[in-house]
Protein backbone atom coordinates (compact mmCIF):
# COMPACT_ATOMS: atom_id res chain seq x y z
CA UNK A 1 0.00 0.00 0.00
CA UNK A 2 2.73 2.45 0.93
CA UNK A 3 4.46 2.21 -2.44
CA UNK A 4 1.18 2.80 -4.23
CA UNK A 5 0.69 6.43 -5.06
CA UNK A 6 -2.52 8.10 -6.07
CA UNK A 7 -3.22 10.88 -8.53
CA UNK A 8 -2.98 14.35 -7.10
CA UNK A 9 -5.88 14.78 -4.74
CA UNK A 10 -6.28 18.44 -3.98
CA UNK A 11 -5.54 18.62 -0.23
CA UNK A 12 -7.81 21.65 0.18
CA UNK A 13 -10.82 19.57 -0.84
CA UNK A 14 -9.60 16.14 0.28
CA UNK A 15 -10.69 16.44 3.90
CA UNK A 16 -14.02 15.16 5.08
CA UNK A 17 -15.43 18.45 6.36
CA UNK A 18 -14.24 20.57 3.42
CA UNK A 19 -15.39 17.96 0.92
CA UNK A 20 -18.89 18.10 2.45
CA UNK A 21 -18.88 21.92 2.28
CA UNK A 22 -17.73 21.81 -1.35
CA UNK A 23 -20.40 19.26 -2.36
CA UNK A 24 -23.12 21.35 -0.69
CA UNK A 25 -21.99 24.57 -2.41
CA UNK A 26 -21.64 22.79 -5.76
CA UNK A 27 -25.25 21.62 -5.38
CA UNK A 28 -26.48 25.22 -5.56
CA UNK A 29 -27.71 26.38 -8.97
CA UNK A 30 -25.10 28.42 -10.87
CA UNK A 31 -24.72 31.93 -9.53
CA UNK A 32 -26.66 31.30 -6.31
CA UNK A 33 -25.32 32.01 -2.82
CA UNK A 34 -26.35 30.55 0.51
CA UNK A 35 -26.39 32.10 3.97
CA UNK A 36 -23.97 30.82 6.58
CA UNK A 37 -26.74 29.58 8.95
CA UNK A 38 -28.54 27.66 6.19
CA UNK A 39 -25.29 26.05 5.06
CA UNK A 40 -24.57 25.20 8.68
CA UNK A 41 -27.96 23.51 9.07
CA UNK A 42 -27.56 21.65 5.75
CA UNK A 43 -24.23 20.23 6.93
CA UNK A 44 -25.06 19.93 10.64
CA UNK A 45 -21.68 21.47 11.53
CA UNK A 46 -20.86 23.82 14.38
CA UNK A 47 -20.41 27.48 13.45
CA UNK A 48 -16.77 27.43 14.54
CA UNK A 49 -15.95 24.29 12.59
CA UNK A 50 -17.67 25.59 9.46
CA UNK A 51 -15.89 28.96 9.71
CA UNK A 52 -12.49 27.26 10.00
CA UNK A 53 -13.04 25.15 6.91
CA UNK A 54 -14.62 28.00 4.94
CA UNK A 55 -11.57 30.11 5.66
CA UNK A 56 -9.27 27.41 4.24
CA UNK A 57 -11.45 27.14 1.13
CA UNK A 58 -11.54 30.93 0.85
CA UNK A 59 -7.73 31.17 1.19
CA UNK A 60 -7.40 28.75 -1.73
CA UNK A 61 -9.76 30.94 -3.76
CA UNK A 62 -12.38 28.21 -3.96
CA UNK A 63 -15.06 29.96 -1.96
CA UNK A 64 -16.35 33.50 -1.99
CA UNK A 65 -17.64 34.83 1.34
CA UNK A 66 -19.57 38.10 1.22
CA UNK A 67 -21.35 40.12 3.86
CA UNK A 68 -24.58 41.94 3.16
CA UNK A 69 -27.00 43.84 5.34
CA UNK A 70 -30.64 42.88 5.52
CA UNK A 71 -32.70 45.13 7.77
CA UNK A 72 -29.49 46.32 9.43
CA UNK A 73 -28.55 42.74 10.33
CA UNK A 74 -25.35 41.44 8.78
CA UNK A 75 -25.85 38.30 6.71
CA UNK A 76 -22.95 36.20 5.46
CA UNK A 77 -23.35 34.63 2.04
CA UNK A 78 -21.19 31.79 0.77
CA UNK A 79 -20.71 30.59 -2.80
CA UNK A 80 -18.28 28.44 -4.75
CA UNK A 81 -16.04 30.45 -7.08
CA UNK A 82 -15.36 29.45 -10.68
CA UNK A 83 -11.92 28.24 -9.50
CA UNK A 84 -13.59 26.23 -6.75
CA UNK A 85 -16.04 24.64 -9.14
CA UNK A 86 -13.21 23.66 -11.46
CA UNK A 87 -11.10 22.34 -8.57
CA UNK A 88 -14.01 20.17 -7.42
CA UNK A 89 -14.50 18.81 -10.96
CA UNK A 90 -10.77 17.98 -11.13
CA UNK A 91 -10.91 16.41 -7.67
CA UNK A 92 -13.80 14.13 -8.68
CA UNK A 93 -11.98 13.12 -11.86
CA UNK A 94 -8.89 12.29 -9.80
CA UNK A 95 -10.90 10.18 -7.34
CA UNK A 96 -12.59 8.36 -10.22
CA UNK A 97 -9.24 7.71 -11.92
CA UNK A 98 -7.95 6.34 -8.65
CA UNK A 99 -10.89 3.96 -8.29
CA UNK A 100 -10.58 2.81 -11.92
CA UNK A 101 -6.80 2.25 -11.73
CA UNK A 102 -5.89 1.35 -8.16
CA UNK A 103 -2.33 0.44 -9.14
CA UNK A 104 -1.28 3.69 -10.78
CA UNK A 105 2.48 4.20 -10.70
CA UNK A 106 3.74 6.94 -8.46
CA UNK A 107 3.82 10.34 -10.05
CA UNK A 108 6.78 12.57 -9.84
CA UNK A 109 6.24 15.77 -8.03
CA UNK A 110 6.82 18.78 -10.23
Amino acid at each position, binding site marked *: *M*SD*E*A*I*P*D*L*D*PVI*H*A*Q*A*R*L*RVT*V*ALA*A*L*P*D*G*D*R*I*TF*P*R*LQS*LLAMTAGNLST*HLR*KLEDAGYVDVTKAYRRRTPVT*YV*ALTETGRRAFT*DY*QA*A*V*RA*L*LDHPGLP*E*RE*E*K
Partner: protein
Amino acid sequence: MQSGLRVIEMGERDDDGVPLSAEASMELIERERRSVGRRLAVNQAPIFAVWGVTFLIGWGACYLAAPGGPRVLAVAAAVPIVVVLYAVAIAVPIVLGARAAKGVRGPSRLSGAMYGWAWALGFLALFAINTGLIRQGLAPATITMLWTGTAQLVTGLMYLAGGMLWRDRVHYALGVWMLVVAAGSVFAGMPGDFLVLALAGGGGFLLWSGLSLVTGGRR
Protein backbone atom coordinates in the same frame (compact mmCIF):
# COMPACT_ATOMS: atom_id res chain seq x y z
CA MET B 1 -2.76 16.47 -13.16
CA GLN B 2 -2.08 20.07 -12.22
CA SER B 3 1.40 20.99 -11.19
CA GLY B 4 1.81 22.47 -7.79
CA LEU B 5 -0.67 20.09 -6.22
CA ARG B 6 0.78 17.98 -3.53
CA VAL B 7 0.72 14.21 -4.02
CA ILE B 8 -0.75 12.69 -0.92
CA GLU B 9 -0.64 9.08 0.09
CA MET B 10 -3.77 7.02 0.35
CA GLY B 11 -4.97 6.93 3.91
CA GLU B 12 -3.30 10.18 4.86
CA ARG B 13 -5.14 11.78 7.70
CA ASP B 14 -7.10 14.91 6.97
CA ASP B 15 -7.77 17.82 9.31
CA ASP B 16 -10.49 15.91 11.12
CA GLY B 17 -8.05 13.15 11.88
CA VAL B 18 -10.16 10.81 9.78
CA PRO B 19 -8.39 8.97 6.97
CA LEU B 20 -10.29 9.37 3.72
CA SER B 21 -9.73 6.75 1.02
CA ALA B 22 -10.82 7.25 -2.57
CA GLU B 23 -13.77 4.89 -2.02
CA ALA B 24 -14.83 6.75 1.11
CA SER B 25 -14.45 10.06 -0.70
CA MET B 26 -16.63 8.94 -3.61
CA GLU B 27 -19.26 7.57 -1.22
CA LEU B 28 -19.24 10.79 0.75
CA ILE B 29 -19.71 12.88 -2.40
CA GLU B 30 -22.67 10.75 -3.52
CA ARG B 31 -24.27 10.70 -0.07
CA GLU B 32 -23.88 14.45 0.52
CA ARG B 33 -25.07 15.32 -2.97
CA ARG B 34 -28.26 13.31 -2.41
CA SER B 35 -28.89 14.67 1.07
CA VAL B 36 -28.22 18.32 0.17
CA GLY B 37 -30.10 18.03 -3.13
CA ARG B 38 -33.12 16.66 -1.31
CA ARG B 39 -33.21 19.65 1.01
CA LEU B 40 -32.42 22.40 -1.50
CA ALA B 41 -35.01 21.25 -4.04
CA VAL B 42 -38.77 21.03 -3.78
CA ASN B 43 -40.08 17.50 -3.96
CA GLN B 44 -42.91 17.55 -6.47
CA ALA B 45 -44.54 14.26 -5.45
CA PRO B 46 -46.42 15.54 -2.34
CA ILE B 47 -47.50 18.70 -4.19
CA PHE B 48 -49.00 16.73 -7.09
CA ALA B 49 -50.56 14.31 -4.59
CA VAL B 50 -52.29 17.11 -2.66
CA TRP B 51 -53.60 18.59 -5.92
CA GLY B 52 -54.76 15.15 -7.05
CA VAL B 53 -56.80 14.66 -3.87
CA THR B 54 -58.13 18.24 -4.13
CA PHE B 55 -59.35 17.70 -7.69
CA LEU B 56 -60.72 14.22 -7.02
CA ILE B 57 -62.69 15.17 -3.90
CA GLY B 58 -63.35 18.86 -4.64
CA TRP B 59 -64.52 18.58 -8.24
CA GLY B 60 -66.07 15.19 -7.42
CA ALA B 61 -68.20 16.92 -4.77
CA CYS B 62 -69.17 19.59 -7.34
CA TYR B 63 -70.29 16.87 -9.73
CA LEU B 64 -72.34 15.15 -7.01
CA ALA B 65 -73.99 18.48 -6.15
CA ALA B 66 -74.40 19.93 -9.65
CA PRO B 67 -77.83 20.48 -11.17
CA GLY B 68 -78.34 17.79 -13.79
CA GLY B 69 -75.96 15.47 -11.94
CA PRO B 70 -76.74 12.83 -9.30
CA ARG B 71 -77.55 15.62 -6.78
CA VAL B 72 -76.64 13.44 -3.80
CA LEU B 73 -74.80 16.34 -2.17
CA ALA B 74 -76.04 19.84 -1.33
CA VAL B 75 -74.29 22.70 -3.14
CA ALA B 76 -73.85 24.32 0.30
CA ALA B 77 -71.80 21.27 1.31
CA ALA B 78 -69.74 21.06 -1.88
CA VAL B 79 -68.55 24.69 -1.92
CA PRO B 80 -66.76 24.68 1.49
CA ILE B 81 -65.12 21.35 0.61
CA VAL B 82 -63.64 22.93 -2.54
CA VAL B 83 -62.56 26.10 -0.73
CA VAL B 84 -60.80 24.26 2.13
CA LEU B 85 -59.09 21.75 -0.19
CA TYR B 86 -57.91 24.55 -2.48
CA ALA B 87 -56.53 26.56 0.44
CA VAL B 88 -54.49 23.56 1.59
CA ALA B 89 -53.35 22.70 -1.95
CA ILE B 90 -52.17 26.28 -2.56
CA ALA B 91 -50.39 26.46 0.82
CA VAL B 92 -48.42 23.20 0.45
CA PRO B 93 -46.17 24.26 -2.48
CA ILE B 94 -45.67 27.73 -0.95
CA VAL B 95 -44.52 26.25 2.38
CA LEU B 96 -42.32 23.58 0.74
CA GLY B 97 -40.85 26.15 -1.67
CA ALA B 98 -40.07 28.65 1.09
CA ARG B 99 -38.44 25.94 3.21
CA ALA B 100 -36.22 24.77 0.34
CA ALA B 101 -35.25 28.31 -0.73
CA LYS B 102 -34.49 29.50 2.82
CA GLY B 103 -31.14 31.28 2.92
CA VAL B 104 -30.54 30.92 -0.82
CA ARG B 105 -30.15 34.04 -2.98
CA GLY B 106 -29.44 34.44 -6.65
CA PRO B 107 -30.80 33.79 -10.12
CA SER B 108 -32.72 30.63 -9.12
CA ARG B 109 -34.50 32.56 -6.38
CA LEU B 110 -35.54 35.22 -8.89
CA SER B 111 -36.92 32.77 -11.44
CA GLY B 112 -38.68 30.87 -8.65
CA ALA B 113 -40.35 34.05 -7.39
CA MET B 114 -41.36 35.04 -10.94
CA TYR B 115 -42.87 31.59 -11.40
CA GLY B 116 -44.82 31.84 -8.15
CA TRP B 117 -46.14 35.29 -9.09
CA ALA B 118 -47.09 34.04 -12.56
CA TRP B 119 -49.58 31.65 -10.92
CA ALA B 120 -51.13 34.47 -8.88
CA LEU B 121 -51.19 36.94 -11.81
CA GLY B 122 -52.61 34.35 -14.19
CA PHE B 123 -55.49 33.52 -11.87
CA LEU B 124 -56.14 37.19 -11.05
CA ALA B 125 -56.45 38.01 -14.75
CA LEU B 126 -58.62 34.93 -15.25
CA PHE B 127 -60.90 36.05 -12.42
CA ALA B 128 -61.21 39.54 -13.90
CA ILE B 129 -61.89 38.32 -17.43
CA ASN B 130 -64.45 35.69 -16.38
CA THR B 131 -66.26 38.10 -14.05
CA GLY B 132 -66.43 40.62 -16.87
CA LEU B 133 -67.80 38.04 -19.29
CA ILE B 134 -70.38 36.82 -16.78
CA ARG B 135 -71.60 40.41 -16.28
CA GLN B 136 -72.40 40.54 -19.99
CA GLY B 137 -74.87 37.72 -19.36
CA LEU B 138 -74.03 34.03 -19.65
CA ALA B 139 -76.14 30.91 -19.12
CA PRO B 140 -75.46 29.18 -15.75
CA ALA B 141 -74.11 26.04 -17.47
CA THR B 142 -71.77 28.18 -19.60
CA ILE B 143 -70.53 29.97 -16.47
CA THR B 144 -69.35 26.78 -14.73
CA MET B 145 -67.76 25.53 -17.94
CA LEU B 146 -66.03 28.89 -18.38
CA TRP B 147 -64.53 28.62 -14.89
CA THR B 148 -63.44 25.00 -15.13
CA GLY B 149 -62.10 25.36 -18.68
CA THR B 150 -60.14 28.60 -18.20
CA ALA B 151 -58.78 27.69 -14.75
CA GLN B 152 -57.53 24.45 -16.22
CA LEU B 153 -56.03 26.28 -19.21
CA VAL B 154 -53.98 28.57 -16.92
CA THR B 155 -52.92 25.56 -14.82
CA GLY B 156 -51.78 23.68 -17.92
CA LEU B 157 -49.80 26.66 -19.22
CA MET B 158 -48.15 27.16 -15.81
CA TYR B 159 -46.95 23.56 -15.80
CA LEU B 160 -45.58 24.07 -19.32
CA ALA B 161 -43.74 27.14 -17.96
CA GLY B 162 -42.44 25.08 -15.01
CA GLY B 163 -41.20 22.45 -17.43
CA MET B 164 -39.32 25.14 -19.38
CA LEU B 165 -37.94 26.76 -16.23
CA TRP B 166 -36.55 23.57 -14.69
CA ARG B 167 -35.97 21.76 -18.01
CA ASP B 168 -38.21 19.04 -16.60
CA ARG B 169 -40.02 16.80 -19.09
CA VAL B 170 -42.27 15.28 -16.39
CA HIS B 171 -43.49 18.75 -15.42
CA TYR B 172 -44.01 19.75 -19.05
CA ALA B 173 -45.94 16.57 -19.85
CA LEU B 174 -48.29 17.27 -16.93
CA GLY B 175 -48.97 20.69 -18.49
CA VAL B 176 -49.83 19.05 -21.80
CA TRP B 177 -52.19 16.66 -20.03
CA MET B 178 -53.87 19.52 -18.15
CA LEU B 179 -54.48 21.34 -21.46
CA VAL B 180 -56.18 18.19 -22.78
CA VAL B 181 -58.28 18.08 -19.60
CA ALA B 182 -59.15 21.79 -20.03
CA ALA B 183 -60.49 21.24 -23.54
CA GLY B 184 -62.13 17.94 -22.57
CA SER B 185 -63.97 19.50 -19.64
CA VAL B 186 -65.66 22.08 -21.88
CA PHE B 187 -66.66 19.48 -24.46
CA ALA B 188 -68.06 17.23 -21.72
CA GLY B 189 -70.62 19.92 -20.97
CA MET B 190 -72.36 20.49 -17.64
CA PRO B 191 -72.08 18.67 -15.18
CA GLY B 192 -69.73 16.30 -16.99
CA ASP B 193 -67.00 18.96 -16.89
CA PHE B 194 -66.72 18.44 -13.11
CA LEU B 195 -66.31 14.72 -13.63
CA VAL B 196 -63.56 15.27 -16.23
CA LEU B 197 -61.68 17.54 -13.80
CA ALA B 198 -62.13 15.11 -10.89
CA LEU B 199 -61.14 11.93 -12.70
CA ALA B 200 -58.83 13.02 -15.58
CA GLY B 201 -57.45 16.07 -13.73
CA GLY B 202 -57.19 14.54 -10.26
CA GLY B 203 -56.14 11.15 -11.64
CA GLY B 204 -53.49 12.90 -13.76
CA PHE B 205 -52.05 14.68 -10.72
CA LEU B 206 -51.92 11.39 -8.77
CA LEU B 207 -50.28 9.60 -11.69
CA TRP B 208 -47.68 12.39 -11.99
CA SER B 209 -47.13 12.27 -8.24
CA GLY B 210 -46.20 8.60 -8.64
CA LEU B 211 -44.01 9.46 -11.66
CA SER B 212 -42.17 12.13 -9.66
CA LEU B 213 -41.59 9.61 -6.88
CA VAL B 214 -40.05 7.15 -9.37
CA THR B 215 -37.95 9.70 -11.30
CA GLY B 216 -37.07 11.70 -8.17
CA GLY B 217 -38.74 14.74 -9.72
CA ARG B 218 -37.56 17.89 -8.00
CA ARG B 219 -37.22 21.40 -9.07
